[in-house]
Structures are given as C-alpha cells and as structure tokens.
C-alpha cells in the first residue's frame, strides 16, 4: 500500500535474531499504523494470554510504529506501545523527533521487539543493516551521557558502513535512563534531551528487555505517495494555517502555566490539593529569560512549541531542557510547590536525564510529599529528605531514589496507584484517597473540577488510555475528540500541528498518501471503534497483578470529588449525578453494556469474535 515502506522489523532479543515482516493491505487499512496497528498486533500475538503476561517479562512486545502520514504531515510522531506496566492494558504513547522519518527512510514502518537480551544492548538500524550491539558501557548512564556516546559511536559506525559518503548526519535515537533500566513504572522512552513517551511506562519495558536504546539511520526517501502533488499541497496548506497560530509558536505549551492552568483552576498544585495559584512567576515572560532558543521543533514542524532552556550559572548551572512544556511546568513545578522557573527547569532536566516521565514521576513525588505533609511518611522513611513543598533539592534527590529504586524510591517507582496500595498496607491506613490516577496512570496536568479545561467529567474515567490527557473519552465530542485522537495516534500526527485541522482534511491527506479513501463515518463508526474495543478489552482483562472492575473502576480519583478549596472556582467540582448519566451515555455510544463491558453484538459487528470469546473465557462477559 502506498505511503508505507512495506516492511516491519521484528527483533527477538532473546534469540538475538532479526527478521522482516509485513501486514496485508486490509490490516493496514483497518488499523492504519501507530496505536491502531499496535492494538491489532498485541491482540493477535498475546491477546489469548493477556492476563498471564507480566509487562516486564520477555513475553511482552515493545512496539515502535510509524503511520502513513509520518513525514507527510507537518510535525511528526512515532507511537510506542505494548502491554502497559501502568494500566496493564495497552496505551498508544507518542513521541516527537525524527525517529519515525529515519525509520521509514531506512525502509521500515515499525519495530516489533520481543524477548530479553542477555546483557545491556542497543539496536542499530542503518538501512537494511541491523545489529544488536553491546550497551554495557552506557548502562546506568543518564540521558545526556547516553546521547553523547551513541551519537559519536553511531556516526563512526555509519561512516564505516558507507565509506566515502561524505559527512554523516547523526542518526535518530530512542533511549532510556536509569528509571527505565531499573524497571520503574514511571519511566519514559526518551529522544533528544527531553522528548518523552511517558504514558504507559514503556521506558520500564525497554529496561526489562535490557534494551538501552534504538538507533536508526535511513538513507532512502520516504515511501511514495499515491498523489504526491495533492499531498504536498495539503502539507503546505496545513503549514500555512499553523504558521498563523502564534500562541503555541511564541510561548510553547508552557504558556499554560499561568494562563491555562492557574486561571482556569485546572493545574495540579501540591498533589492536586488545589488547582489554582496566584503566583505569576510561571507566566511566559518569566521562563523566557532562560531560553537560548525561542523556536525549536522536530522534522517538518511549523509550530515549534519547544523552547530550549539552559541554566548557565548558579547552583543549577548545566541544566538543559525543552522549554519546560506545560506538563513539566505543572507536574515538576506547581504540583511540588515549586514556583521558581529556574528550579522548575533544573528538576525537569534531572527528571529527563533520569528518564522519568514528567507526569508519572511528578505525580509520585507529589504524592510522597503529601504523605510527608500529613505526617504519614517520616523524614527517616524518606532517607533523611525534608520533603516540604517547594524544596527543589529534596524533590530532586527523591527523583534519583525513584529512578534507582533506592529506599522508599523502590515503592514510589511503582507509580502512584501501586505505591498507594503498598504504603496503605504498610501503614494500615487507606492512602488511595491521595493517589490521583486513573487505572494506574497518573492524570495529565488538566483538572476537571472547574469545568474550564478541555478535560471534562468522564474524560479520564472512561478513557481506554486511562489518565492520558491527549486521548479523552467524550460523548458530545466523541467524533472530534476521542476518535480523532485515535486517528492522530495511528496515522501518526502531532496534536499541536493538527490543532486547527479538521478530521476530514487529515483523511484527505491520508487518501492522497495511501490512495485509499476513508470516510469520517467509516472511521468513527467502525475502524476507530474497533481499536477502542480492543483497548477496552485489554484493560478489563488486565493481569497479572491488577484487574480493573467493569464499571466500578471507571471512576474519578477521590480527590476530584473534593470541591476546589480556593480560587475563582472555589467550591466547584463534578456533579455525581451528571457524571453517572454521562458515563451511561458514553457506554451506550461506544456499544458497551451498563457495566461498561463491550456488548457481544458490538464486537461481532466489528468482526472481533476473538475478543468476545476471550471476554467470555475470562468471565467478563456472561
């Protein structure tokens, strides 16, 4: 099919073997790529044994998949997936950078990685030459060291493979830091300094496979498009409209720090005890002082919402990070009571270097700090850390402990939900009320209590991506909301470069690239829905350590039922009756019964008989 390189690379790290595989046009048309195709591959290969498979076992499959629009749409993403060590379902976790384009140019649409390498390894892909190489010397190293080493070494390797070529450009690299190596559930897969795929915990999955990095260099062109002229015309048109959106371009996503977060009361403050603050230090102008680059983007990006921040002097000298973006600003800032931009840049940099997900990592640090505030965790238990709000050094030390699983870090490395379960057991009190998560996944930095953010009442509770703020369950906006997220994550597009691009227009580009016409209706009512059912089934089956109960676990975290204690929306929270009503409405809309279980007829209509059988065998369907 046009728009695809046609081959996927299967790497078995246990065997040390590599082979190529392909999928039929029918599969590619139904599941597209990225998140959609991940659901298909995972279901076909491990769906039957889903409840038995530990996400950190060699049986789990790590997927790095592009989509047909990778490189053809302004801005680019690649989707990381597998059985998630956070939700025990499947999450499509996207990451920006040039990796997807390099992979396609090397002749591959994706990587399917199984097994576990005997020793620390990395995969080197240079066009058709694939090697599994020793990574012992960089195991334990932070992101910056890892990058420095791999860029140098790979450029030399590629020069040997292509003598007399001329100067060799650096390859694209996905890697993990210590947080992933130590199989924490809060680890991201990282590229560049701070681009991360954090939702899902796939950094830990890479670590469990002894896989430090994937290095890719492609020398070929992107796959041919069906109608190149039309594709380029749409690329230009989308770009032109993106250039007109000055807001993200000028301030990045970090503009949210004050405007979107504080003013709409939807930003986590001190582990979500509040969602409003009157400290204006997080306004763009304050961060702007540390930017050495105002516009930083990845392949084809017209928006460049990234800003390069560097702390050149003082006690935090040497810190480098992208922006920070809104999620880091919130979770590694206000959520920890940190309101000084310089401190926020520093701790974001440390977290990135450790390979911690900003959201999952920030959530667990905030959770620990609230337990300290309440006297539940003592200074001794925290290894001597004075974990008071705003104490940047203490939070940084704790982040190190989490990434390396030292002391209390070993428990916190399990993520907010599992840490709460474990500490409740140890302390003999229920601590789940302080754990802000949805099905094991810490929630994006967008609250729902004020009703002013884009996330709404049931957005997280019903999402198959759990706490992921980039893919929200929604009734009224099912079409433009959730189904379009599934399209973006599958095709693969960046949310910020397709902000003002209608689904129909993305489908036009999809047709120009692949030659296949897909209508909005087909996508919403059939294909997106099919992907959604598979993800839902995986969540409900769960295992081996966690299962989500149908209906019961489609619930907001306890904190989100507490009225907002301050700010312009003081006293406001979600209305319980409305929540239950919307939940039922949503279930109906996506073809689930009143408990939230996919109905047999829904599954049959979508040709998902194997999902139906599995749900029956696991007694989820009667």
């Amino acid at each position, binding site marked *: 099919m046009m728009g695809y390189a046609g081959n996927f690379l299967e790497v078995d790290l246990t065997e040390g073997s590599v082979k190529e595989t392909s999928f039929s046009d029918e599969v590619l048309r139904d599941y597209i790529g990225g998140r959609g195709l991940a659901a298909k591959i995972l279901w076909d290969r491990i769906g039957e044994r889903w409840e038995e498979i530990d996400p950190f076992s060699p049986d789990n499959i790590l997927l790095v998949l592009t989509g047909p629009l990778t490189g053809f749409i302004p801005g680019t993403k690649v989707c990381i997936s597998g059985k998630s060590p956070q939700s025990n379902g499947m999450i499509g976790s996207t990451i920006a950078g040039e990796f997807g384009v390099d992979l396609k140019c090397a002749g591959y649409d994706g990587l399917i990685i199984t097994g576990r390498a005997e020793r620390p390894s990395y995969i080197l892909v240079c066009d058709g030459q694939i090697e599994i190489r020793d990574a012992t010397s960089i195991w334990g190293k932070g992101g910056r060291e890892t990058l*420095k080493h791999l860029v140098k070494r790979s450029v030399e390797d590629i020069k040997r493979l292509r003598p007399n070529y001329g100067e060799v450009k650096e390859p694209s690299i996905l890697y993990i830091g210590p947080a992933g190596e130590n199989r924490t559930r809060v680890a991201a897969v990282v590229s560049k300094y701070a681009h991360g795929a954090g939702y899902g915990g796939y950094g830990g999955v890479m670590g469990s496979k002894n896989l430090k990095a994937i290095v890719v260099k492609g020398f070929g062109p992107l796959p041919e498009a069906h109608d190149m002229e039309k594709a380029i015309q749409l690329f230009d048109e989308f*770009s032109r409209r993106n250039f007109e959106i000055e807001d993200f371009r000028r301030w990045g996503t970090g503009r949210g720090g004050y405007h979107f977060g504080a003013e709409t009361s939807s930003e986590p403050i001190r582990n979500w005890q509040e969602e409003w603050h009157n400290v204006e230090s997080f306004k763009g102008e304050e961060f702007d002082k540390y930017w050495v*680059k105002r516009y930083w*983007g990845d392949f084809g990006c017209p928006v*460049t919402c990234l800003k390069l921040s*560097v702390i050149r002097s003082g006690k935090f000298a040497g810190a*480098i990070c992208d922006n920070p973006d809104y999620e880091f600003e919130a979770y590694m800032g206000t959520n920890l009571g940190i309101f000084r931009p310089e401190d926020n840049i520093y701790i974001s940099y440390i977290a990135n270097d450790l390979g911690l997900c900003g959201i999952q990592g920030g959530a667990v640090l905030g959770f620990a700090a609230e337990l300290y505030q309440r006297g539940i965790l003592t200074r001794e238990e925290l290894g001597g850390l004075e974990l008071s709000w705003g104490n940047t050094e203490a939070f940084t030390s704790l982040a190190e402990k989490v990434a390396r699983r030292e002391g209390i870090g070993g428990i916190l490395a399990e993520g907010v939900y599992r840490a709460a379960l474990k500490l409740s057991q140890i302390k003999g009190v229920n601590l789940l009320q302080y754990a802000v998560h949805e099905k094991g996944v810490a929630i994006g930095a967008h609250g729902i209590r004020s009703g002013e953010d884009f996330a709404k009442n049931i957005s997280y509770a019903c999402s198959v991506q759990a706490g992921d703020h980039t893919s929200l369950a929604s009734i009224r906006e099912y079409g433009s909301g959730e189904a379009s997220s599934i399209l973006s994550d599958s095709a693969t597009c960046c949310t910020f470069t397709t902000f003002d691009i209608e689904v129909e227009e993305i489908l036009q580009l999809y047709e120009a690239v692949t030659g296949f016409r897909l209508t909005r209706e087909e996508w919403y009512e059939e294909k997106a829905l099919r992907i959604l059912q598979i993800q839902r089934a995986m969540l409900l089956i769960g295992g081996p350590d966690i299962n989500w109960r149908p209906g019961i676990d489609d619930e907001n975290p306890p904190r989100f039922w507490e009225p907002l204690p301050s700010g312009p929306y003081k006293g406001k929270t979600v209305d319980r009756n409305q929540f239950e009503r919307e939940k039922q409405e949503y279930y109906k809309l996506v073809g689930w019964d009143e408990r939230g279980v996919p109905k047999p007829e829904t599954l049959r209509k979508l040709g998902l008989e194997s999902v139906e059988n599995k749900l029956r065998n696991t007694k989820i369907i009667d």
Partner: protein
Amino acid sequence: MVGARRIWIERDYESCSGCRRCEIACSLYHEGRVWPEASRVRVFMLIPGVEIPHLCFQCEDYPCVNACPSGALSADAETGAVRVDASRCTSCGVCITACPGRVPHLHPRKDHIVICDLCDGDPRCVEACRMGRWNALRAVPRVEGFSYRLYAKTPEILTSAVARRLFGEEIAREVEG
C-alpha cells in the same frame, strides 16, 4: 544581465529551529520526493538543540571544482552555484576532501555527488525557512571580492561554535565530550 542573479545563502545557525523544512523543500525540488539524505542542504544535529543547516558555501576559488579529476563540477557563470554533471561524476569523493566545509556528499542511492545548485537563483530552502519566519537561511546578493571560504567549516566545528554561544563554554564542553 550577467551577475544579477548571483546570490549567496547566508545562515544564522542560532535561528535554525531544526524543523528540516529546508530538507523537505530541497529534496522535493530536486528528487520529487521527501528525502532528507538526498537534500542538498542537510541539517546536522550532533548535539540536540544545536542544529546546523549545512550546504555549499560557494568559495570564491571553488576548491571542489578545481579538484574534480573528471570535469564533472563547474561554477555556473550566471548564478555562481556549483554545477554537478552527474554523467561525468565518478563518485571519487575528491571534492569532499577538497571542500573546507566537507559539504558535498554522495547521493544516497545514485552514483554521483550532490551539491547545492541554488535552484537556478531561487533557492527553495530559503523560501521554506522564510515561510516559517525563522529566516535562518537568507538569500543575499553575492559580493565579489569577499572571502566566502572563511565561512566554510565542517559540521563539527560549526556545532562546537554554536554550542558555545547557546550553552556557554563550560556546559558546551561537557555536552560535546
């Protein structure tokens, strides 16, 4: 009028966003495909955040043209760009060694060298960069008697210099290793 289209592509490395839209535009124009490695301008990112758009510096003495043993390279009389006659190029790589900036590189799939030809005086990379309002690449009139060769540096050297400006001496040294 001869000389009217003689331009030079000025580069402001610190303004490069790293978006590679120049690579997309260049490869579409020359190859009809999105093909970063076949682009005549390639953005090097040996250190994240330090993006170096690397393309012909059009040295006034054209060391690549002078070094070419097969007569495949010539300087275009009208635009001043280096022309590659693919049919005569033997891919020997002498031009790469002769270039003080090591700019030319082999076409990734064909047997000839690729060098920026200024798109006949209307460089697509500059247009793409201008569209983004980064203006890291700008077409300026070429001044005769000026040493453009002074700017011709390898991606490593340019990266090092830009990293020092962006990160400061000490951090840059640590990041580079």
